[in-house]
């Protein structure tokens, strides 16, 4: 079975500093991995996805994530945080069996001015 663990429930950074949101996955085969963002009272938006192509994946709004098989990690990064990045971020692994997505518990990102 697939699973995903987000290592931090809450991350706080200052505006203009780097962002690192950590995610580890467990899968018995080569997984597909996603990061979704959820702003307050908004729907989930796909940030980026890894589907066995390039291991460094670039997404929207300057975010990127690197798939590291040896570390079973898919951490999300951004060089410089903006106030508008404050939101809940979900790391997600796919379940090949049914195509359904398995969500992590989420990381709340706060950005201080």
């Amino acid at each position, binding site marked *: 079975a697939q699973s995903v663990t987000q290592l931090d429930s809450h991350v706080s950074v200052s505006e203009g500093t780097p962002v690192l949101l950590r995610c580890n996955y467990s899968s018995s085969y080569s997984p597909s991995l996603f990061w979704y963002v959820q702003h307050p009272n*908004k*729907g989930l938006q796909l940030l980026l996805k890894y*589907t066995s192509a390039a291991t460094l994946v670039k997404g929207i709004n300057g975010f990127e994530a690197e798939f590291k098989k040896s570390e079973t990690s898919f951490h999300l990064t951004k060089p410089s945080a903006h106030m508008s990045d404050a939101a809940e971020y979900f790391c997600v692994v*796919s379940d090949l069996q049914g*195509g359904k*997505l398995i*969500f*992590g*518990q*989420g990381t709340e990102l706060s950005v201080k001015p």
Partner: protein
Amino acid sequence: GAGVSQSPSNKVTEKGKDVELRCDPISGHTALYWYRQSLGQGLEFLIYFQGNSAPDKSGLPSDRFSAERTGGSVSTLTIQRTQQEDSAVYLCASSPQGTLNYGYTFGSGTRLTVV
């Protein structure tokens, strides 16, 4: 439509009543999913429809929950005899083929409050 549409956006119901939540997926998307997001929790998979195949109901928490998808398009999630623990945001998502290489587009959800 341009996105996944869910209605109502908010629903308050009395304990014991039945409720129906509606999802209108993106036109042409063959896969449709229902998830539940409880306060402070991640997303919990409920049910998955793919084309004309039998739905994957493995995530439904009890027999009070059911869902159908008519004509391969609109889906309705029904909760019978609602309980307070059913209070959550119910999210619907659709995907072009339900496979790994496509993104899943989520609706804005229905916030259900059982009082």
